[in-house]
């Protein structure tokens, strides 16, 4: 299991992988500029939609405009997280399973799940995270909400839970390639569904809400952390986050190991 020496070794490894990824990206400066422009345009588009909605309505399923800005901020942070580390690594896993490149991951004396999950970083995508943070801060300021330490703690827990859940979700998707070899456009499907997270859960029909909480756990990614910050979340949100996130993580990890056993022919 994890002890102090392994931890420091893994942290050092992450630091080096980050450094290498950064160099990789500076090699493509033009690509960097287009990425920045793309992110900015996305944010503008979202704010524009928001403006259009609130020009016609005073609230969106009970959420005021600044509260939705906070929600969009959380959404942007998640976009950043997925784009920066989750998607690039899971994409690589899917590719490696198909090509056999996973062999190189498996002969390394580190946890295969760890190495496969943190090999690649697209650091410029962290920009989305920064923009998200700015939107959250601006939203909170405009709300003139008094953010107490307890609120911050609740926000930190729910957003961390959201991060764990979205990682687990992607790991499960990537692991299915052990059986299906190729899942066309799975990433497109993800992003399309994920965009439903730009609106508060309450705008949807009850059954969709249920679906987005327990089947495709979008609620955990955006609505819950935003709720926490604007003071709409209670103990129930906290407890669900604290149960679902570890459960999803354990499930995804178990599924990954099950997939590996198939890959190595141990289950046949």
């Amino acid at each position, binding site marked *: 299991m994890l002890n102090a020496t392994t931890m420091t070794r893994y942290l050092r490894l992450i630091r080096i992988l980050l450094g290498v990824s950064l160099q990789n990206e500076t090699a493509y400066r033009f690509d960097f500029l287009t990425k920045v422009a793309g992110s900015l345009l996305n944010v503008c588009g979202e704010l524009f939609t928001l403006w259009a909605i609130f020009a016609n309505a005073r609230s969106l399923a009970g959420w005021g405009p600044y509260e939705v800005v906070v929600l969009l901020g959380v959404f942007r942070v998640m976009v950043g997280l997925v784009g920066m580390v989750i998607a690039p690594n899971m994409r690589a896993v899917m590719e490696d399973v198909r090509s056999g490149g996973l062999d190189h991951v498996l002969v390394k*004396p580190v946890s295969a799940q760890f190495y496969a999950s943190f090999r690649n970083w697209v650091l410029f995508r962290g920009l989305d995270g920064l923009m998200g943070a700015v939107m959250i801060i601006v939203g909170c300021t405009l709300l003139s909400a008094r953010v107490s330490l307890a609120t911050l703690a609740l926000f930190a827990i729910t957003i961390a839970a959201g991060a764990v859940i979205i990682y687990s979700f992607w790991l499960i998707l990537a692991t299915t390639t052990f059986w299906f070899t190729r899942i066309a456009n799975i990433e497109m499907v993800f992003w399309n569904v994920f965009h439903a997270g730009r609106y508060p859960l309450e705008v949807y029909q009850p059954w969709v809400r249920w679906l987005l909480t327990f089947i495709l756990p979008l609620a955990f990614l955006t609505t819950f952390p935003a709720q926490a910050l604007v003071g709409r979340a209670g103990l129930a949100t906290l407890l669900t986050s604290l149960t679902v996130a570890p459960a999803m993580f354990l499930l995804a990890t178990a599924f990954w190991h099950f997939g590996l056993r198939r890959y190595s022919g141990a289950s046949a």
Partner: protein
Amino acid sequence: MAPDGITFAYHAHMPVVTTANLCKSFRVPQREPGLAAALRSVFRRKYTVTPAVVDVCFSIEPGEIVGFLGPNGAGKTTTLKMLTGLLHPTSGTASVLGHTPWKREPAYLRRISLVMGQRSQLNWDLPAMDSFLVQLAVYGVDDSQGRQTIDELAELLELKELLKKPVRNLSLGERMKCELCLSLLHRPEVLFLDEPTIGVDITMQTRIRQFIADYNRRYGATVILTSHYMADVTALCKRIIVINHGAILFDGPLAALVDRIAPFKLIAIDLERELPNGLPPHLGEVITAEARKLTLRVPKDAIAAATSRILAELPVLDLTVQDPPIEDVITSVFHVKK
């Protein structure tokens, strides 16, 4: 997993690798051609079990260089994958450096290395040096020792200038040298090489071979190599394991291979004049014939008789008895045993 602090010491007289009755079969989905069969296979797949490795037993001593020889699909790579822990065997056991490979214990993986000629581990867009640094961190090699190893290996492989160029700008051979260097940075005790010279030109092949031999001598590492380039094997390996259809056909010194599985020699003769009716069939099997030069294949125990008969019956200018080339020997083995 073995608790930290316990090291599996092995002694000079103890084998590094042992396998006993190692078997691996794959379940391969079967489908008949045609649409109906395709639809049926969506719901109910038929599988056939194909044996890839059958009852493989061998042991390898520390410092040996052993070559696995066999045609494509013979089971060489499957065996290698079991020894590196990538595949679980269907049955049988294997032990490498005292570990069961497919448990993939970090303590085991740190002591071995796998090089696959067809699959690169280098980051395409960056100089090889960056991939090296990642490798050192993955294997937990400390900085100063790592740098020293890089210097040493770069010197041996003559790749000092290459380390700063992006990998995509290197030639295939140069890339292979970097690949080798990368996989040796943690000083593995056992090195598994799967087709290390594939696609590389002859000069580079020779240099890579030389380097492998150097590394083996310098660090006493055990090397297990698969190749279907005969020259790789004949140049490097004193011992050869021939595999075909998943089973071991031969395990022993290269010279013995020729003796054992090529129970014939070649007789080359120079004639005074061409034979109008060709060679009388009772003298031997003709392999090549061009004008007045003939090569015959004759069973080893019949060499003496055949030679005297040829000398008596034919107008011979010159006659030599030779061993058949190793390539031909191997090819003939694979054909006979099919």
